[in-house]
């Protein structure tokens, strides 16, 4: 059971890391990446629920595991939609920031020094 509890704490740490990135990263694609970190951390926490639910001949509870598989695919679909939205925003405004000031001051050809 040590492995499963450890995996749970790993998941908790991943949620924290992802949350930090989500707030700090200015680039929307990196925000998306951080959000996926949060997601996989939550899946991992759910994974230890599955592991703890072992009963009978099963070493795990198959229901949460099946839901995590579904969840991973749905998370990917949502990420793809988010990427499409970011790219369209870039095509329309030349920037990828939701902050009106930032997108006017930083055109695509602005200096690379930032």
């Amino acid at each position, binding site marked *: 059971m040590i492995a499963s509890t450890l995996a749970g704490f790993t998941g908790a740490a991943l949620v924290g890391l992802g949350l930090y990135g989500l707030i700090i990263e200015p680039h929307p694609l990196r925000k998306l990446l951080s959000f*996926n970190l949060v997601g996989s951390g939550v899946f991992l926490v759910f994974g230890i629920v599955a592991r703890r639910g072992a009963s*009978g001949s099963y070493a795990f509870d198959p229901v949460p595991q099946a839901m995590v598989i579904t969840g991973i*695919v*749905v998370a990917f679909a949502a990420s793809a*939609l988010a990427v499409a939205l970011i790219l369209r925003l870039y095509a329309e405004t030349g920037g990828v920031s939701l902050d009106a000031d930032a997108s006017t001051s930083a055109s695509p050809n602005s200096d690379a020094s930032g």
Partner: protein
Amino acid sequence: MSILPLLDIELAALVVMVAFGTIAARTLFAAVVSYVAYGLLLALVWVRLFAPDVALTEAAVGSGVTGVLLITAGKRLVPLRGGLPQAKVGRGLKLAAGLVAVLATAVLSVAIALLPDPAPSLAPQAAAAAAGPGAGLGNPITAVLISYRSFDTMLEKVVLILAVTGVWSIGRSADWGSRPATLGKDASAPPMALLARLLVPLGVVIGVHVFWVGADEPGGAFQSGALLAAMWMVMMMSGLSEPPRIGGRSVRLALIAGPAVFLTVGVAGAVVADGFFAFPRSFAKPLILFVEAVMVLSITVALPLLVAGPPSREAEP
């Protein structure tokens, strides 16, 4: 006393460190590469949790296909390179964000430590489903996905279709009906084409194998669909294949085939068998395999379309 607990601790430390690398990386590309490595390590953690099916899905979809999606998106944003958005992140905000993160981790950790001891479990019901209506499936995960929680699985395919519809709708109206932009601009690079020629036939065989053994062993429709989708994306990235025209009838039919067949079988179950999404006992297994095969087709088409993005007129030759 075995060496396994030590390995578990090392693995957990490695996962957290690589995740930290994803956040701390200087460039987007470095962040995505470290995210892909992170996904593969996470798959090992899933193996340690006795979840090989989840490990396969995490490695294929969570790490692989998501990595391709983000790298492609990064390439399309290339004109921005280094440019924006450079809102200065102050020390105060960093501190506050760190505090929020630590708090979230702490609360979750406490919740994990306090999980009820005789853990609630649906395993007995799932075992009953695998033995009864799930009929003849040795892999309990597949039994749950197809039989015990079949409605969820069907709706999840609908989510994929909705996402594809959403991605297509985001394109400019003038571009409706054309192809999405090519995945790789420097597409005809010989090493990539060689890789595609060597890898794709092998990958397709493995993909079909993963589907076929999924009834009794780790594997199944999701993992197989993701593998086959990855092979198609390798073809697109090497320039051997173009993303399909979004107006094409065959593309659209392939997209909806999975949930449509699943739903039809489910409704038929209400008439022929014991209820909605119940399978007639005598030929449950062939029926389930048929439904899964069609779902593999839909997943194989949906994932690359999601990565390819909205239609774009510039992609037209």
